């Protein structure tokens, strides 16, 4: 599998990154060399091996449906880069 600069651009859009021409070239080369190094994984037979997605096997961890104190609106909004009317403000989203 070799990544093309177009695929790299597509991945960048998925990840909401904007790459310069130069970055796109560099990432294409670097990602390809990393993925090439990783090809060895494909040689390993893992049929029937369950994937390990958690480091420690645990299940059924819950909290009860008891309310906790929310933040004050000031604490909630104090870090916002842009705010208005007790809300977070963003460029217009077209529905």
């Amino acid at each position, binding site marked *: 599998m070799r990544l093309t600069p177009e695929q790299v651009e597509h991945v960048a859009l998925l990840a909401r*990154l904007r790459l310069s021409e130069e970055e796109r070239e560099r990432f294409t080369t670097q990602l390809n060399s990393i993925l090439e190094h*990783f090809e060895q994984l494909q040689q390993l037979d893992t049929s029937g091996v369950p*994937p*390990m997605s*958690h480091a420690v096997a645990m299940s059924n961890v819950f909290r009860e449906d008891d309310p906790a104190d929310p933040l004050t609106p000031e604490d909630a909004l*104090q*870090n916002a880069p842009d705010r208005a009317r007790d809300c977070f403000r963003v*460029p217009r989203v077209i529905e």
Partner: protein
Amino acid sequence: MSALNDLTAHELSELLGKREASAREVLEATCARIDEVEDNLAAYLLLTREEAERQASAVDERRARGEDLPALAGVPLALKDIFCTKGIETTCGSRILKGFVPPYDADVVERCRENGLVLVGKTNMDEFAMGSSTENSAFGVTHNPWDLERVPGGSSGGSAAAAAASSTIVALGTDTGGSIRQPASFCGVVGLKPTYGRISRYGVVAFASSLDQVGAITKDVRDCALMLNVLAGHDPRDSTSIAAPAPDYTRALVSELAGMRVGLVKEFMEYQGVGVDREVGAAVRGAVERFHELGAECGEVSLPHLNYSIPVYYLIAPAEASSNLARYDGVQYGYRTPEEGAADIIEMYRKTRDDGFGPEVKRRIMLGTYALSAGYYDAYYLKASQVRGLIRRDFDRAFEQYDILVGPTSPTVAFRLGEKTEDPIAMYLSDVCTIPVNMGGLPGMSLPCGFSPDGMPIGLQLVGRSLGEEALLRAAYAFEQTTDFHRRRAHSVRERNGRRCVVARASA
């Protein structure tokens, strides 16, 4: 006599308890050291001196009133800037979080406060903990106190450098693929990454959630046990936190190893046929000898799937990171690239993230996004998760024969600044011995086991069974008692080649 800040936490605890020193005095000595070395070291991103003075005074007042105080009350603490601190800026080494002031404390920060530790500052780190040298910080490079031309390791490089230079007494780090152990090794201090789930991740900025674990970086093994007593325990705010109560870890500190079975891991000494540096290998074999002399039964063991740990790690960790870091988009907090003209939300996101993240973070986000994307999930992420299971199985088998596994923490001593920044794979390979331990969710520890001919510390890695921290501490403590590596401090500053340097010197 050494300056107060050159002492260990347990030594200070004793002095403070006997009122032979006050928390204020300990803090002053520590701050004096910071003033002396920080220009050269750049271990800290932020100093919290006023807050520290208040905390130290409060401890002294409580002691004067005759209150029974926790063991480490009054001991200075440095926090990697990955821990959320209420009311104190937390950047995770990233421009995208510049100015972020969390309205909450991480669980471990609460625990440290409750135990009277005195926060002196937040330490430098690789951006979002992605790196092995602290060169990926958005806010400058931290230097290794043993040789300022070298890296302190990473990603908890600031914490390790500060502990090694005695510009703090204890420090906290996080470890996703070796980020506590490798810098501890490079800086000649002790670092323990406990079992996944033993310490709460609540309030710790996430890198790779299924691998991240908190731990302490200290000057010796006893301090490490004392810190684990402070940090370990159940937290209902972290679903992956282990419910079993934490023991008193200082009880594990005994000076013999009779009956303990110690296995030297072949793949730690040689990854895919390439051996570790000669002096590193020699120091580790010397340590195994020492274990034998202390009464342990020693042998060699092979864990074949460890030869795949680099690709497995660099698929799983970036995949999780690409998702964890999606939230940095300039809406609720942190940096946002100012809008020009008719702004569009997608462009706002892309510009903000382009300006806010450094190259290594972007590289991993790209890699992780690709590994999870349609059509590649099975070949990359799923495959890696399966091999991760095989790595864990290898460990389980090895632990049928051995109580602890050992090897070097890193294949080399600290490398030179800039040496590996242009070659991602070479950089990734410096974590080859530590990464498998995170894959397995197991406890791992690094402690000094020697020095290279050019005076750089070498780290010994110990790996235990799940929740086997006590076995690690016991082995580490017994070993440490037979050496003086932990008493050497990188603590004098002098001119070298026209620069002020902090240089190594064995303490008297």
